[in-house]
Structures are given as C-alpha cells and as structure tokens.
C-alpha cells in the first residue's frame, strides 16, 4: 500500500495531548451522551409498548374494531360448531338477477 503520511497527522502523541488537556471534559461528554441515548431508548420503548394500544383505543372509540378483537372474530368464524351462515349482501343481489 502506498505511503500516506496524512494518516499519521493525528498520531498517538497528539491524541495523548488532547486526552491530557481535555480528558475530564471528554469523560463528562461521554456521560451526557450515554444518558441522552438512554432517555431516547426509554421513550422509544414506551412508544413501542403503548402506541399500538392507544391506536386500538382510538379505533374503538370511533366505532371501528381494534386489531385484537378483529382477530378473535375471525377465529370464531372458523368454528365448525357455529350455526349456518345467512346469505351475504352480495349473494342476495346475485339471486335477484
């Protein structure tokens, strides 16, 4: 690989100098960044956990069927013990023809 002394400009010595001069400040920054990331993760977890429930509640409130309830309905439709199904709206149109 061709020599590139630009890669050595920020060498270990310079890094050491910066760490000696600003080490405590950089440690503080690390703590603050980690704390902020933790906060974002916490908010993200809350959003993940509660937003679907809030949406379901909103759908129910506006007269729709929430995802969980819909699932139960479809399960009961498959039950063989249910009585015969009545004609659907589409069928009734067909029979008139």
């Amino acid at each position, binding site marked *: 690989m*061709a*020599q*590139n*002394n*630009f*890669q*050595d*400009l*920020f*060498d270990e010595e*310079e*890094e050491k100098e*910066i*760490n000696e001069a*600003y080490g405590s*400040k*950089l440690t503080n*920054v*690390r703590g*603050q*960044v*980690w704390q*902020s*990331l933790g906060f*974002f*993760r916490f908010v993200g977890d809350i959003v993940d956990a509660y937003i679907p429930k809030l949406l379901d509640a909103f759908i129910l409130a506006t007269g729709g069927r929430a995802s969980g309830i819909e699932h139960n309905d479809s399960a009961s439709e498959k039950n063989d013990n249910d009585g015969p199904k009545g004609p659907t709206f589409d069928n009734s149109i067909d029979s008139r023809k």
Partner: protein
Amino acid sequence: MNDLQIIQQYLKKQASICFSLLYNRYASKIFAKCISLLKDETLAQDATQEIFMKIFLNLTKFAERAKFSTWVYSITYNYCIDYLRKKKKLNNIFSDEMEKAPDIGEEVPDHELLQMETQKLKKVLGEMQEGDREILLMKYQYELSIKEISMMLDKSESAVKMRIKRAKSKAQQMKKDMFKEEE
C-alpha cells in the same frame, strides 16, 4: 474488533461497552477537529456531544460504502460548518476566487505530498490557509472522494479538483520555502 464489528454489536445489544469503545476511538479526533474549526473549547465540547448524538442515533443509516471514520468526519465537518453558517462566523473558507484564478499548469504528483515527512507536513499544513488545508485533509487524511467533497462543499466536482490542484501546488511551494536549507 474493528469499527464495523463494534457497530453491529451495538445495534444488536445497545451495550455500553460498544458505545465506550467507539467513543474512546473517536472522541479526541472529533474534539480536535471541532476546536480547529470552531476555535473555541466550550463550543467544541458542546459540538462533540451533539455530533456523538447524531452518530449514535443514525448508526442504522450508516451505509458501509464509506469507512466509518470518513462518515464520522463528514458529520463532524457538516455540523461545524452549519454552526458557523448559522452564527454567521463563516468567513467563507472556500471562496470562489480561487476557482476563477488562471490554471497553474502541471499538477503536483500525489506521492510528493503523501510521502512528505510527518513533521514537515504538519508545519506546512499549519501555515496554509484554512480552506486549502481543509480540502487537502478531506482528500488525503479522511480519504473522501471528489464527489463526496463536492457534495459537502456544495461546489462542482471540477471546482473541487481545481481547488485540490492549487492547494497541492501551494503546499509543495511552502515546503520548498520553509525547508530550503535541508534540501
């Protein structure tokens, strides 16, 4: 572990050890770059914090097309330039005047710059104008492509090439002037 392995581990487990490894590798570099561009320790400290937030919140967007260090550099550079623009402290590092100047002829071969002794290179870069220094660092230290530099500086690729050519020529001339006794 290389950067990419650490990033993958961090994205899987959000482990603090991965965070610390990346932070320790890049904190002083980012801080040094912020100080050199913002010229203020407190601002540089705040900028380092913001830049790390950007890096970690956008890690999933890191496309592995470029080196991680290059990606980190472009975030750092863009953050500092945006800050200076907002505060109107940007005294047009990359002015258009240079591009309008007549062509300088032969291009200095890359190896003449790349193989310059590190101490001499540091001194030469230290004496150069900020815009010339920065564009040489982008090209040769952070290994950004012409296209990436042109996007960062919002200049055409031909303008960037011309700018690099001139900066290289200046660097070589400065080296000759500064170290003529040794040569």
